[in-house]
């Protein structure tokens, strides 16, 4: 079956340092990958939509300078949180659509804590 695998599941970094998280599509080709963040006690915000061989589209309040994304092939994407601070804490989800008209499939997420 299709699934989305995220690594690491949990991570802690010092304030001002950077942290990279990975997303892998298993069993299907992830043409587009969306990254979301759930801050503590909040809902999910779309960070960016990444499509292979196309420009990455960032949502308002999120920038490439802060959240650079790599999407080199149809099975892998990574995102880095640069200069992480307290407001960057939360659960980061990677999602991909297996087929059009199907619900986006999410990974288990990477939970980021910042000290």
């Amino acid at each position, binding site marked *: 079956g299709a699934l989305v695998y995220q690594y690491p599941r949990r991570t802690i970094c010092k304030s001002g340092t950077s942290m990279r998280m990975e997303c892998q599509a298993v069993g299907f080709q992830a043409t*587009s990958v*969306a990254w*979301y963040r759930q801050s503590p006690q*909040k*809902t*999910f*915000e*779309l960070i960016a*939509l990444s499509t292979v061989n196309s420009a990455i589209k960032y*949502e308002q309040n999120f920038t490439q300078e802060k959240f650079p994304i790599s999407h080199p092939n149809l099975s892998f994407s990574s995102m880095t949180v640069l200069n992480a601070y307290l407001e960057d804490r939360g*659960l980061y*989800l990677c*999602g991909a*659509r297996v087929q*059009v*008209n*199907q*619900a*986006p*499939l*999410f*990974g*288990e*997420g990477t939970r980021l804590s910042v000290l």
Partner: protein
Amino acid sequence: AQSVDQPDAHVTLSEGASLELRCSYSYSAAPYLFWYVQYPGQSLQFLLKYITGDTVVKGTKGFEAEFRKSNSSFNLKKSPAHWSDSAKYFCALDSSGSWQLIFGSGTQLTVMP
């Protein structure tokens, strides 16, 4: 602008009762609508979706939802509720396959045993 509203931050009911979690959306064209559930410390699990066709859609874990264009709603229902249904539920809108999911603020459901 597109938006999703889940007006009830918390819903508490007794096991065996019927549950209905409210969701309304704002979008000018045909929406794709989803319900996801988040258990404590976990990611999102898909429950059901409405794309087109039958306005009552059935999903996993015994849940169903009804799409009502007249009042732009997509309420989630289940009867009877079980204590294991306790979790946070998110309604989401995908504006015609653009892949930019807009989530509601979520409803924390507590089912008392």
